[in-house]
């Protein structure tokens, strides 16, 4: 007699814990720990006083909540001779990131729209070059760009750094939008042309409202990329416009006397807070947009 004859299957299949399930959960939990443990250490360290830190129990909770390190990090930490915290860097980062994101996403969307629907002569070649440009490590462009910007008088200025970010962001954003727009049925474009709409009206009234998920994805990718950028900010922004990342580095690497680990941790968290918050609050949109770009219809 076979087993299947003994048990008569009926209704929902019973779930069973298998070795595979256990392995899967073990992997997921360890992956989660891998990312949360450093965060935990940073947060508790930032809330401790220096004597507590010297006790070298990095996993222990602080004796009492002490936010003084956060205040110092924000407004009083020293980077070299200046002791103004990363407050100024925060403002610079906002001033650099916002226009860069808006301009690069908008231009990328226009590029992608023009490439997928209007198919200008040489469009494929231009797209190929743009992609090739995205593959070349951008360190290669640094020197020529510095010379070029210096000649144009844009070096060490806010406008200069925004232009640099827009230039380096365009290939990826264009690719995103091109791939999104090619999934939109061409008949929609034809219908709007029959209705008499031109290049800009089709873009603004038909295509842009349809690409909200992709706009969110592109904006988030550009935002985190530009906010987290260090090298370009260091090279192109100039002393007065140094972004938060550069200022963080200056604070952490300033060694006069004791290393203030609690201040360093607080400053680091403050710097990472904005992109972290963005992912936290719009992760759903992000996934939806990625899926919208990948799957047709």
């Amino acid at each position, binding site marked *: 007699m076979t087993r299947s004859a003994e048990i008569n299957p009926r209704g929902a299949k019973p779930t069973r814990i298998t070795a595979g399930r256990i392995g899967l959960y073990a992997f997921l939990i360890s992956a989660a720990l891998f990312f949360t443990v450093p965060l935990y250490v940073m947060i508790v360290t930032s809330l401790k006083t220096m004597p507590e830190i010297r006790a070298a129990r990095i996993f222990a909770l602080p004796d009492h909540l002490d936010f003084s390190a956060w205040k110092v990090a924000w407004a009083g930490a020293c980077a070299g001779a200046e002791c103004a915290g990363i407050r100024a860097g925060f403002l610079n980062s906002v001033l650099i990131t916002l226009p860069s994101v808006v301009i690069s996403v908008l231009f990328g969307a226009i590029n992608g729209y023009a490439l997928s629907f209007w198919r200008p002569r040489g469009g494929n070649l231009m797209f190929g070059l743009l992609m090739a440009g995205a593959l070349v490590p951008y360190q290669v462009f640094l020197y020529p760009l510095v010379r070029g910007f210096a000649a144009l008088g844009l070096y060490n200025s806010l406008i200069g750094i925004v232009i640099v970010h827009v230039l380096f962001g365009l290939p990826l954003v264009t690719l995103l939008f091109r791939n999104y727009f090619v999934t939109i049925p061409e*008949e*929609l474009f034809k*219908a709007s*042309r*029959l*209705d*008499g709409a031109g290049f800009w009206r089709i873009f603004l009234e038909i295509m842009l*409202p349809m690409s909200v998920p992709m706009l969110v994805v592109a904006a988030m990718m550009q935002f985190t990329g530009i906010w987290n950028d260090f090298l370009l900010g260091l090279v192109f922004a100039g002393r007065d416009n140094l972004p938060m990342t550069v200022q963080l580095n200056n604070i952490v690497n300033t060694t006069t006397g004791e290393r203030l680990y609690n201040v360093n941790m607080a400053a680091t968290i403050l710097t990472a807070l904005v992109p972290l918050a963005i992912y936290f609050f719009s992760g759903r949109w992000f996934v939806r947009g990625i899926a919208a770009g990948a799957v047709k219809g």
Partner: protein
Amino acid sequence: MQTAVSIKDLKVSYGPTVVLQNLNLDIRPREFLVLLGSSGCGKSTLLNAIAGLNDVSDGEIWIEGKNVTWAEPKDRGIGMVFQSYALYPRMTVRKNLAFGLRVAGLPSDEVNTRVARAADMLHLTPLLDRKPAELSGGQRQRVAIGRALVREVDVFLFDEPLSNLDAKLRNELRVEIKKLHQDLGNTMIYVTHDQVEAMTLADRIAIMKDGVIQQLAPPSEIYHRPANLFVAGFIGAPSMNFIEGRVIKTDAGFDFETGDTRFSLDGYHGAPVEGPATLGFRPEHLCLEGISGPELNGTVAVVEPMGADTVVWFDWHKQNFSLRLMGDSGFTPGAAIQVGIDLSKASLFGADGTAL
């Protein structure tokens, strides 16, 4: 002759691939013309060229007496309905209908009047404030038709408008489109690969293959007097039966010979020519009783009852033939069957495939 749409020596090519060449077509005012063909035959390319959505390489396109070869789609006086509906997903039905008029800069009360009229005609009034995603397939296609309607143009273009719908809705909308044509009296050019749509809707059908119009004629002529073998085989389901053989001239007239069978072609309407030929006859042009012409003695292979009629497939000289009978049939597979060909309704094709 007055024409609504006139195509002169049209050539369309995508890079090195020539899709249409030297195509000439005149469409009469208020005519319902169907472009019929399998995919890749150039019928959609032709429609897009008329709409101005494809660039033409050579030739002229005239609509309502104007040469529109270089005109923008919106200036050609046409409305178009697409297979995928192509509704603007972020706009309500009302805004979908009004978009083109708004772009054209019409005053808003004129826009509202036209939208209301079109919505009324297509039974869309209760749906005006819905988004396309909240509509069924049939409703979406009606909105797409409405979008062409509000333009109040003389020529409507349909690009396989019913292909995305299920069979029942397709039949319903087909009737609606025919009614719309009767009410409006516009010129309509309709692309499809569905021969039932073509037969039922068209005043004239243009059957296309490889970018060439094979035959341009009213449906009944296409069906009963196909111009060549391709048209004969394309139209009709089950398709026309064919026997290959040769025509031989005799003292009394012409004979058709295939294998060891030979019969007279007396009663055939055309003008046979000596040489290799193909005899074609439709399943319903075979008879069981009152046989006067050639006779086929075969064996029943398969019986397909369809309710209103029955298709009997039988073998004759190792070839498969179909016979359509009204109502039910008493045949069972393996039974002997004797049928006669009604030569007055048959077609004869010469060696090059054209009708004799």
